[in-house]
């Protein structure tokens, strides 16, 4: 997976930008859909208008043809010729119509005229085209099928042939009591072409796929900026009669393109703004608090002293909760750490530093002394007859005794008017074995004073389980660097002095000197510095 490699900020940025791009894409798609929808509606509207206009034009044409036929059949010469069934005369009368108003004014372009009797049998016919134009197929039959009372009404039909279209109008001869019928067949193309002028749009007429009438204004590239609408007229014949209208949609396309550009621009600006605001909010409410927490965690991990320090709870609710939890956990960890440390470096019975801590401090002190040439003392301390007490009074009493002894030693070393005790450490090394490090003690005399101070602290009887008990103590004093310069040897020297004191029962002994009397007269009798050859 490549995703986990990136930061949360990158994730959020990519997500927001992706959403923005998705939005832009959707806007584009929607725009295209709307554009097509608008074009479809425009086309449908054009087709409707075109149909209405074409129907109007055809209606007018039919009315003219009807008027023409009715006027013709009403003339006395027509009536006479028809009454006599004189075909030649009828053809003559029909032919004369081509010099009258409807034809000469180009209101009607007559293809043919038919005169029929009441049984719809042709009596006479006149055609302008030698090839002849028949009536629409079934036209006469349908006219004849009408109820008698309806037959006086003019009857019309539009029909298409291979190369042209025509409109036929049948009127009754004889008014209320028809004695025959007159069919007027005209070319409707000029009337339909008039729609082009009325709508101001190029018009093409097709019969099926065949182009019957073209327009010089028809656009050469209709797909580019032209909207082409088609409508079919109900016509009888071999193929449907179709009208095609072309409307210049360049302006519409331009408007749509401009609207789309504006929408996209606004969408882009909105996306960028939202991205920036989202990032700013995210940075402020989540990222920064998280970075602070992470930084603090890193600090705590590298340095335990930072445990317990607090992080200010800021940002959103989740981040504040996280910070609160961190603070609480940090506090608890600090306490736990302190407890663990205490357990590792202190004697649980007496609370004094244990052997590990004592050795650590001793090492530090030795390094310091090596560096600045100072000297210090180590005291090895052991209780007299402790095993006996333990065996007699039990371990519990022994433990109590150790605690009381520790308290007294601690108290004794807390203050001193004569000897510098700054930075001292008293540790319990195990059993009844204690050790003291006295960094401020510079010479044997001071060491002896401290030993006596400790012995004096033991003079009062201890109270153990209702009994009073006196317990003695043996102390060995060793000096650095007078007696040795190594840590282990220093301890051995102190131990050696302590055993010497125990053996002699003098309470304390300075390494390298004969045991002092039980009641020391003067501690300044000898000095290890006077006998540097001595070793422990």
């Amino acid at each position: 997976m490549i995703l986990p490699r990136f930061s949360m900020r990158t994730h959020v940025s990519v997500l927001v930008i992706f959403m923005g791009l998705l939005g832009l894409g959707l806007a584009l798609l929607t725009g295209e859909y709307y554009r097509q929808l608008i074009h479809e509606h425009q086309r449908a509207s054009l087709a409707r208008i075109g149909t209405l206009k074409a129907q109007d034009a055809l209606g007018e044409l039919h009315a003219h043809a009807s008027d023409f036929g009715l006027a013709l059949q009403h003339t006395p010469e027509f009536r006479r010729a028809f009454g006599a069934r004189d075909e030649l005369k009828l053809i003559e009368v029909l032919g004369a119509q081509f010099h009258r108003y409807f034809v000469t004014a180009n209101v009607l372009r007559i293809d043919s005229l038919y005169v029929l009797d009441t049984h719809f049998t042709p009596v006479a016919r006149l055609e302008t085209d030698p090839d002849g134009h028949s009536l629409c197929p079934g036209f006469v039959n349908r006219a004849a099928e009408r109820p008698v009372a309806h037959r006086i009404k003019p009857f019309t039909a539009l029909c298409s042939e291979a190369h042209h279209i025509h409109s036929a109008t049948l009127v009754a001869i004889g008014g209320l009591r028809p004695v025959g019928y007159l069919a007027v067949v005209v070319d409707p193309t000029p009337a339909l072409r008039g729609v082009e002028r009325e709508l101001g749009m190029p018009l093409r007429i097709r019969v099926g796929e065949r182009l019957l009438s073209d327009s010089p204004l028809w656009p050469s590239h209709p797909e580019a900026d032209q909207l082409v609408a088609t409508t079919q007229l109900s016509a009888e014949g071999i193929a449907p009669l179709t009208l095609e209208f072309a409307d210049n949609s360049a302006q519409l396309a331009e408007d749509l393109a401009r609207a789309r550009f504006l929408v996209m621009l606004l969408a882009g600006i909105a996306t960028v703004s939202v991205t920036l605001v989202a990032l700013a909010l995210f940075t402020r409410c989540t990222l920064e608090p998280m970075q602070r927490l992470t930084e603090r965690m890193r600090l705590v991990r590298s340095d335990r002293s930072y445990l317990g320090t607090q992080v200010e709870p800021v940002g959103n609710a989740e981040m504040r909760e996280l910070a609160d939890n961190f603070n609480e956990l940090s506090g608890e960890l600090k306490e736990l750490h302190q407890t663990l440390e205490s357990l590792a470096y202190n004697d649980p019975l007496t609370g004094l530093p244990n052997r590990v801590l004592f050795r650590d401090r001793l090492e530090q002190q030795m390094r310091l002394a090596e560096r600045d040439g100072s000297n210090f003392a180590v005291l090895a301390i052991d209780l007299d007859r402790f095993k006996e007490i333990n065996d007699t009074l039990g371990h519990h009493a022994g433990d109590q005794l150790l605690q009381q002894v520790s308290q007294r030693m601690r108290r004794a070393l807390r203050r001193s008017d004569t000897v510098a005790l700054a930075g001292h450490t008293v540790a319990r090394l195990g059993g009844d074995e204690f050790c003291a490090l006295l960094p401020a003690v510079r010479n044997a005399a001071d060491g002896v004073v401290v030993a006596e101070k400790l012995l004096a602290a033991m003079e009062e009887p201890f109270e153990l389980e209702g009994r009073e008990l006196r317990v003695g103590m043996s102390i060995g004093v060793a000096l650095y660097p007078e007696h040795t310069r190594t840590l282990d040897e220093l301890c051995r020297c102190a131990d050696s002095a302590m055993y010497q004191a125990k053996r002699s029962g003098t309470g304390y002994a300075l390494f390298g000197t004969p045991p002092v009397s039980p009641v020391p007269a003067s501690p300044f009798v000898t000095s290890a510095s006077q006998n540097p050859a001595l070793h422990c």
Partner: protein
Amino acid sequence: MYRPLALIALLAGSVAFAETAPDAVEPLPDGVLTLTAPQLTELAARVDGLLVVDARLAADRAQGYIEDSISLPNVETDCAALARRIPDRNRPVVFYCNGVRCGRSLDSVQKARACGYTRVFWFRGGFEEWRAEGYPLVKD
């Protein structure tokens, strides 16, 4: 729409249907049946000798008229004029004028009834209805 039986019964001399005529308006004289345009054409197809009388003035007639109708403006209609144009008082006669708002045909109908014509019809919708229904008209 068509009531050939009723019309034929009327032509036979009965006047009972006059009261049930749908478009009858007062004061329509007894025995006069109101016709619609389709009823008029139906009647013309079935009855020989039906005469259609245009009760309008000549100027209105110039706009077009029902073919084969004769012109007899109501203002010129009286028993003598009717007798000259329609000597047979039993001949079925239909009167019309411009439309329902034109009172000329009703005037002529009343005069014809008063003069003793027995088969009088009133084409109340007149020229307006005729043209609207798409029936043919002619002009001189």
